[in-house]
């Protein structure tokens, strides 16, 4: 008797378990975005969703793919958790998505790659392709590389190549301090930077090599004192979030005269958090930024800003959508395997230069800009008086790094 209610409850729960069956619509191609959409860091996933929607709609307006089929972007909230990702991924696949987009967190990326390797092996007729456009751990295109994974962002090593290219050209830099977070990603930067600096500028002295616990430090002043004591001219840091903003801000507050070579300072919320402390000091790497003088992207940025009241950032997603559509058109199907085979050998010319996918590890190469935060630029970011200004550029070829990938092909 008393458990009758539980039974009723369980039955109700069972009803709640069933999502309404999606209508398999032959006129659309579903693109699933799996990323964190809620919580304190939810704005990143939200921004990704808006970017993806924006570029997909542009492509649709220009005629779509395969003679008129439209891209349809659906977002799934994985709450930044790898296990939750797997549930959401299954949901996306059941909803008919064969293309999965994801950006935040290499842990989640690893989980997706792992899941899809097994899923595609167990369901060869229902294979799914993973487009990674922001998870930067080099392992994804090295030891853990997969046929079903494409990375459309410059990974840590490639970014380090662009940064060290810039340092190579700057004779004022004599002493470099490495400042990274203590996990696989920070360690990758540290190794790559040490090696590349040795190759490109053997005269440079690495005066410090710090690994700080991830997102745990609340006061950065002692680190600033430590950096100052070494007399460093430049700091290379792949920190993100608070670990980056707080570091640079405290440095500015205490008047530390160094150049910050960062990987993420140009990300959303960056200039707002850094403020005047970053001007002329904070350098960042990106495939594009607001002040690249190029007409089509400028127009795109303006449209995007008007629509979403936010700055265009993921320029690469435009390239991704365009190349994906072209691969589908060439393969004459949306089957992920056929599309992947086209995509992995594709060379593509954007208004900014030549780009290509390296078939060996599915890493995408594109021209990279090194830019510095500045208050003297035409396009400002996030309604602050600051923006980024180009100081150097590396062509796609100049950033190529070796890979250890031995890809298992289906």
């Amino acid at each position, binding site marked *: *008797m*008393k*458990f*009758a*209610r*539980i*039974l009723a*409850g*369980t*039955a109700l*729960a*069972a009803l*709640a*378990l*069933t*999502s309404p*069956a999606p209508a398999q619509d032959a006129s659309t191609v579903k693109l699933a975005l799996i990323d964190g*959409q*809620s*919580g304190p860091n*939810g704005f990143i996933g*939200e921004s990704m969703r*808006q970017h993806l929607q924006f570029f997909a709609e542009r492509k649709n307006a220009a005629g779509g793919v395969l003679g008129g089929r439209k891209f349809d972007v659906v977002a*799934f*909230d994985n*709450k*930044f*958790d*790898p*296990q*939750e990702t*797997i*549930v959401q991924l*299954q*949901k996306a*696949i*059941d909803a008919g998505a064969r293309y999965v987009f994801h950006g935040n*967190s*290499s*842990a989640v*990326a*690893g*989980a997706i790659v*792992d*899941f899809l390797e*097994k899923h595609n092996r*167990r369901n060869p007729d229902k294979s799914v392709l993973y487009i990674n456009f922001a998870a930067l*751990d080099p*392992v994804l295109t090295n030891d853990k590389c997969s046929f079903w994974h494409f990375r459309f962002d410059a990974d840590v090593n490639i970014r380090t190549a662009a940064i060290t290219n810039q340092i190579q050209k700057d004779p004022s830099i004599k002493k470099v301090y490495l400042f990274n977070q*203590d*996990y*696989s*990603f920070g360690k990758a930067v540290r190794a790559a930077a040490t090696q590349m600096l040795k190759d490109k500028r053997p005269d440079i002295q690495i005066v410090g090599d710090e690994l700080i*616990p*991830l997102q*745990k430090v609340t006061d950065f002043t002692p680190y600033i004192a430590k950096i100052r004591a070494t007399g460093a001219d430049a700091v290379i840091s792949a920190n993100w979030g608070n670990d980056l903003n707080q570091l640079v801000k405290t440095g500015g507050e205490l008047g530390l005269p160094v150049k910050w070579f960062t990987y993420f300072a140009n990300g959303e919320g960056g200039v707002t958090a850094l403020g005047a402390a970053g001007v002329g000091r904070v350098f960042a790497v990106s495939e594009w930024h607001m002040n690249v003088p190029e007409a089509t992207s400028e127009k795109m940025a303006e449209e995007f800003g008007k*629509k*979403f*009241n936010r700055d265009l950032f993921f320029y690469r997603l435009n390239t991704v959508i365009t190349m994906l559509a072209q691969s589908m058109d060439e393969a004459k199907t949306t089957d992920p395997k056929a599309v992947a085979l086209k995509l992995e050998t594709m060379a593509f010319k954007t208004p900014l230069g030549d780009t290509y996918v390296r078939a060996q590890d599915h890493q995408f190469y594109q021209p990279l800009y090194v830019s510095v935060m500045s208050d003297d630029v035409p396009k400002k970011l996030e309604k602050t008086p600051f923006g980024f200004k180009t100081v150097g550029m590396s062509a796609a070829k100049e950033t190529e790094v070796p890979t250890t990938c031995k890809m298992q092909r289906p």
Partner: protein
Amino acid sequence: MTSLSIGRHAGQIVWFLAIALALLLPELIPSKTALTKMCLIGITIVFALSYNILLGQTGLLSFGHAVYFGLSGFAAIHLINLIGRHQLPIPVLIVPLFAGLAGAAFGLLFGILSTRRHGTAFAMISLAIAELVAASSLILESFFGGESGVTTDRSVGPTLFGIDLVPQIQVYYLIVGWGVLSAITMYAFTRTPLGRMATAVRDNPERAEFIGYSPQIVRLLSFIVSAFFAGVAGGLAAINYEIMTATNLSTAASGSVLIMTYIGGASFFYGPVIGAIVISLIQLSLSDVTPAWLLYLGLLFVITVLFAPTGIAGLIERHLPPLRARVLHHLIPSYLLSAAAGSVFAVGAIALLEMNYHVTLNAHEGPLLRLFWIQVDTTQPLAWGVAILVTVCGFFLFRRTWPLVGGAWNEIDSRLRKAAP
């Protein structure tokens, strides 16, 4: 603890029905998404039940229960990898048992430190241990695999009765099997002398000591048992997801299991089961419906604490005596009235919240918002006016009708008293 006096057999029948339903669910709902969700819920149920051995039975508030879930999950992953590498003759099916043993071992280790004390001190120690383990998970890379965690392939082991664990459905039945086994064992544990002593220690440690039991030892044993079943859940998670990462042993995961147990009802054995199902479903599905789901979750905690401090199970138990006395129907009119008023209030409040979210976060989608089944134009003052009016009216209606429920209960209670000899 479930009171034995009422409908012993009815209770057993419902348990059997629930288990049968769990076994039949994949047939009833042939969807892979549902299967994935059910696997997650099954694991969560075991985890929440194990937590309730601490919270409900022994009265220990822990902020670090995910430590045992996570650590044994990692142990299970490494064991599966070891089986694969050396072709060990251990079927992956029984890995949860080893995971449970690993959990118990960690439980013994940390339990010696923490169970010397109870109450707030115990809670703080568990928090400290949780933070320490979470922080070292990024330092000890060879065991925790750093940020990307450790992955495995569950199908590497020797197959047993043709079960290779490749299809998800096999994993589901594995989870159901281990889940039912664990639930029965945990229920049996509440009936053992040790389980009874744990309750005694919860209620009055001094008196427990007078009759010759060391509260510390009892707490420690309870703690180990609880860690064992958390370990079983961790092992199941390792098999199900084939990946463990540091987020599995974070304090957030520990907080989540505390919430499930509390909302389900910590004073009843089946409370955590309900809590695990409800909260998991909210976490999995509400985020599809609204971007404000975290706000609603927060509201749910506050409302539960204020109006149903004994959890959902407590609400159910409250209704059983009138149901058996066949006077439950006297509540229906007041419930209906109150529910109607309450839902007017809820509709208004939800409309306001959603419109606010829409304006601040999704303005680019245009002024139109799909709310329930209608389109709302968020630029129209009228829409806001109506929403505010509905909310305010609903609030006052609810305040007027709520005392009716109290009145009906008073009446029922007096009837029940009269009926009782």
